């Protein structure tokens, strides 16, 4: 394994971390459109919190996918063709939720408004769940053949472990979204988000514990890397606890950073456990490795130069755009 290959393995992890940190609260906010927001005016505000950002957040996924193609095409090819149905459903969800915000705002009848609200809610929730399921199934080990082609059956990706993984990620996104709403709104919505998180965090803890136990039995993570895996799982629990403490003591930034770090530590957990592989095969001989799945040194070198010259500029205006929309949004006045 060359240092460039290692760098790109880490970079893919960084991009997915960015994606889950950012799109995590997007998904969370999306899920809340129907239940948390109680009327049209509240929904306007809730959607408006992510209005200027969701599109840019989704670009992190597109970049992660593109970067995977540009650095580890074997990984990209195996993962994307192998998880065909899961990715297809994810795409359907992303499409529905993606257009739902714009379409909802322009619908005139109640029925169609409601339709696009549900599209946003279900799309966001299912996308989060499916991503969790995909990554959990991926680390469990999949039937991959010599050519790197994966032919998974239904139970390979739908099983207890992957469903728990999916639910855990969904709940994580949900609390992350609520923490984001606490930061971005004032008044009724801000208080309600905190009240909801008071209930949801114990659920999340339970989910994390079950997930950690199943991780022990379903993957080789604890067997192969006992130290680092245990540390990351502990870190996950600690940051979740800190975020919960932020909910109880009303420290909004602490909660938001905490739930964001929880999502990131899930990604770190996965990438740490994968290393030095990129895809885990049931037959260890066929696992895809960092060293033989990557592009040529020339391409990796080129991509490194380009990425490190473009990404800093992107980060500057990306962060600036959040700064521009720094103001809190007031909860609508309760007339009735």
């Amino acid at each position: 394994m060359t240092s460039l290959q290692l760098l790109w393995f880490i970079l893919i992890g960084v991009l997915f971390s960015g994606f889950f940190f950012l799109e995590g609260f997007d998904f969370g906010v999306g899920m809340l459109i129907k239940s948390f927001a109680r009327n049209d005016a509240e929904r306007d505000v809730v959607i408006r919190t992510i209005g200027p950002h969701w599109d840019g957040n989704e670009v992190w996924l597109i970049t992660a996918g593109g970067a995977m193609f540009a650095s580890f095409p074997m990984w990209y090819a195996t993962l994307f063709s192998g998880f065909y149905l899961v990715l297809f459903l994810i795409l359907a969800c992303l499409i529905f939720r993606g257009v739902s915000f714009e379409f909802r705002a322009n619908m005139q009848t109640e029925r169609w408004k409601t339709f696009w609200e549900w599209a946003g809610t279900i799309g966001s929730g299912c996308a989060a769940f499916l991503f969790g399921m995909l990554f959990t199934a991926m680390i469990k080990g999949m039937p991959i053949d010599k050519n790197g082609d994966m032919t998974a059956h239904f139970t390979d990706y739908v099983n207890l472990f992957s469903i728990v993984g999916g639910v855990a990620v969904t709940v994580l996104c949900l609390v992350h979204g609520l923490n984001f709403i606490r930061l971005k709104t004032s008044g009724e919505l801000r208080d309600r988000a905190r009240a909801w998180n008071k209930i949801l965090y114990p659920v999340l803890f339970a989910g994390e514990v079950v997930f950690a136990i199943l991780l022990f039995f379903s993957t080789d993570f604890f067997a192969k890397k006992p130290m680092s895996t245990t540390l990351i799982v502990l870190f996950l629990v600690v940051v979740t606890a800190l975020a919960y403490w932020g909910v109880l003591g009303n420290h909004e930034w602490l909660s938001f950073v905490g739930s964001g770090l929880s999502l990131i530590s899930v990604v770190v957990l996965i990438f740490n456990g994968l290393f030095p592989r990129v895809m885990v095969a049931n037959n260890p001989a066929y696992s895809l490795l960092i060293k033989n799945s990557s592009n040529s040194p020339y391409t990796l070198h080129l991509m490194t130069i380009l990425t490190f010259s473009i990404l800093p500029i992107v980060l500057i205006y990306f962060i600036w755009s959040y700064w521009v929309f720094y103001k809190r949004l007031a909860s609508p006045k309760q007339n009735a």
Partner: protein
Amino acid sequence: MINLGLDILGLARFQFGMTTVFHFFFVPFSIGLAFVVAVMETMYAVKGDKDYKKMAQFWGKMFLYSFAVGVVTGIIQEFQFGMNWSEYSRFMGDIFGAPLAIEALAAFFMESTFIGMWMFTWDRFNKWVHVLFIWLVMFGSSLSALWILAANSFMQNPLGYIINKQTGHVQMTDFGAIVGNPQLWNEFPHVIFGAFVTAAFVIAGCSAWRLLKKEHVTFYRKSMQVALVIGLIFSLGSIASGDTQMRYLLNNQPMKVGAMEGLYKNSTEKGEWTAIAGFDTKAHKTTWSVDIPYVLNLLSYHKLTGTVTGMNQANKELHAKYDKKYGNDINYYVPTKTLFWSFRIMSGASALFALLAIVGLIFNRKKSQAIVKQKWFLYIMGLCLWLPFIVNTCGWFITEFGRYPWVVYGLLTIADAVSPNVSVASLLTSNIVYFLMFAGMGVVMVVLCHRTLKAGPDAENTDGYSASDVDIDPYSKGAFNHD
């Protein structure tokens, strides 16, 4: 299972075609609208005329709808390579991934960030800063077109690579050659100009329908004026860039040119151009045709002499070149009728666009009321708003069907590129669902645009929720305070 005669390859090809065509309804429309809206807002910034601001906001609404659909269908495009074409991804990863990643990094972030800024900050920034946002969106989206076309150009004309002896995959040796690919610099202006024409004629067409109703006459006349000026410049531009591209293809992909011009046999010195014709594609023969002498040479070489290679000879040359490696049972004939008629629709429509723009500009002179009185013209303009979408599709039909049987010209056939591990059932399901979703989104798009148009430029903006209603002073209840 019932055998419907469906196979992975056919379904994967259909899916690629369907998603690309649908995606490419919205891509040129968005790029073009970003440009036209940017021009309108710049005119507002320069002249201070509020009408132009209203125009930018009004047509900007359609831009936002189109952008949303373009984004979500674009994700399918990126994932599709891995999902349906895993062998292609493995073979081409070293070359193809790079432009795709740069596209996301350099272009998508810029587009998506600044579109959010543009949408929600009409009252917050100085007008010059605000107009900069839409130009950055426009710049970002053109940049994304550049990178994806760089990837496409390699598929049409591979340069700057070697074949890795161990893996048999392509390996990049010269990034400069990939970016400098002449195919790219022929394709890119043509695509961008086409995008500007698309938006221009949609705006002109929409305005025409409203002018027929005599609504907001000043507003729509001004919109029409901006659209037609842009439409005229860039329809001429796309004809010129199409011409250079055609002449480039003469040497590069003679099979494609042969099919576009309906030539099975080499053309004679007289340069007879086939205006319309019927083909027997099985026997590789033209059954009947209407020919005009010398035009073919004028089009191809800008002079009266010369000959153009026909498909039969191109076929022989391809067999001579590739039979050793791929065997002699590959069919190198491309779908002749599709290319021939697509080319005629595309070039005919481009000429029509230029003509309509000229006539429209004459009718729409400042002091004349002609444009409101010439109802026949407004009807034609109104109907023509659909034409750019057909034309764009025709353009891609020519480029992509004309690549047959290659996915990467001379290096990889379409049949070898498909994912071997994806089932027919999966592909069929995704095809059906995508089709239904696209149909649904298409309908919603048309309904939304129609409604926006009917509501007119004075309608309240529902997108930005006029930021002042909901924002509160950040400093009175700072985000760091806990109540």
